[in-house]
């Protein structure tokens, strides 16, 4: 059984097709790049998988079951925009996660926060954007999930923070778990990907092993992506 499967998945908003007939399987133990330009449909697909939107037609299966309460235990999701209450301090956020998710490993989160020299009494509103992104990632990666879905984890952060984020992903995903990373910043991330999925205009245009694609096209994933989707 696949960890995640989408079958003939379609999503319309106001009779406009945002996702067209998406078929995709995500196995265990892989890091997958969901790559596409802005507006390609990446976030819509992720929201459908996370049960935040309902498909117009087609089906999503997570460990063989439709999205719902059970799949929220399986998936750890990093949304594009932060949802943390800015008036909370870090300690309160940790308690919140602990109460909300049975698979949240607070020891791990505390250790990662300590490595960042973050005082847990700091209010979220007092933290820089980069720090908030790091905190959010730590929270998501500290859950012992089977599938991590990270929507634009590198958006708007400096190169040093980018390295920190990649390292944190690599060193913290559970063995046997999979990670889906949606991004348009391909060059920064392609080194850690097993598989790539190109999404354009609501459709999957290509699915391949990253190294096989490099061998075939004799170019970087970033370069190949640019060739495919030249504006």
């Amino acid at each position, binding site marked *: 059984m696949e960890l995640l499967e989408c079958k003939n998945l379609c999503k319309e908003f106001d009779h406009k097709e945002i996702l067209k007939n998406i078929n995709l399987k995500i196995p265990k133990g892989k890091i997958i790049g969901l790559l596409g330009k802005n507006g390609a449909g990446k976030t819509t697909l992720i929201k459908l998988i996370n049960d935040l939107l309902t498909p117009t037609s087609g089906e999503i299966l997570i460990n063989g079951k439709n999205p719902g309460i059970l799949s929220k235990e399986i998936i750890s999701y990093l949304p594009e925009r932060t949802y943390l209450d800015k008036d909370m301090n870090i300690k309160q956020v940790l308690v919140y996660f602990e109460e909300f998710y049975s698979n949240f490993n607070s020891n791990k989160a505390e250790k990662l926060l300590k490595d960042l020299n973050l005082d847990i009494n700091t209010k979220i509103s007092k933290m820089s954007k980069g720090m908030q992104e790091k905190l959010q990632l730590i929270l998501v990666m500290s859950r012992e999930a089977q599938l991590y879905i990270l929507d634009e984890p590198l958006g708007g952060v400096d190169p040093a923070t980018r390295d920190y984020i990649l390292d944190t992903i690599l060193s913290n995903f559970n063995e046997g778990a999979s990670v889906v990373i949606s991004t348009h910043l391909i060059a920064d991330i392609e080194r850690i990907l097993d598989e790539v999925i190109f999404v354009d205009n609501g459709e999957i245009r290509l699915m391949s092993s990253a*190294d096989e694609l490099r061998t075939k096209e004799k170019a970087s994933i970033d370069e190949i992506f640019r060739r495919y989707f030249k504006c």
Partner: protein
Amino acid sequence: MDYIFDNERPIYIQLVEMLRIEIVSGKMKQGERLPSVRELALIARVNPNTMQKALVELEEEGLVYTERTNGKFVTTNSELINNIKKELAQEKIKKFLNDMENIGITCDEAIVYLQKLGGDINGITRM
């Protein structure tokens, strides 16, 4: 060592090349136990699956072997290491001579240059 990758070539092949050099140069010693795949992946900052693939390749070459339940080790076969070292040297020399040819220096002339250097890289500036 620094693991810097060229995104245009498969990452696992680049890892194989880097680890091969570590072994033939003796930086990784014969019979030395390798860190776990996950540890190695973290050091090189790559996906554990990619590191695994690279190690499988090195194992096929014979440079690395697995002891069941005990992990992976660098081969103690010096002959194999020397052969691979020679192959690598030949590749580098071929490339060097090619580069020389491109700037109009024949193989014989290149050899004369090298002899003048007498094994001293810094001698280049004195030539």
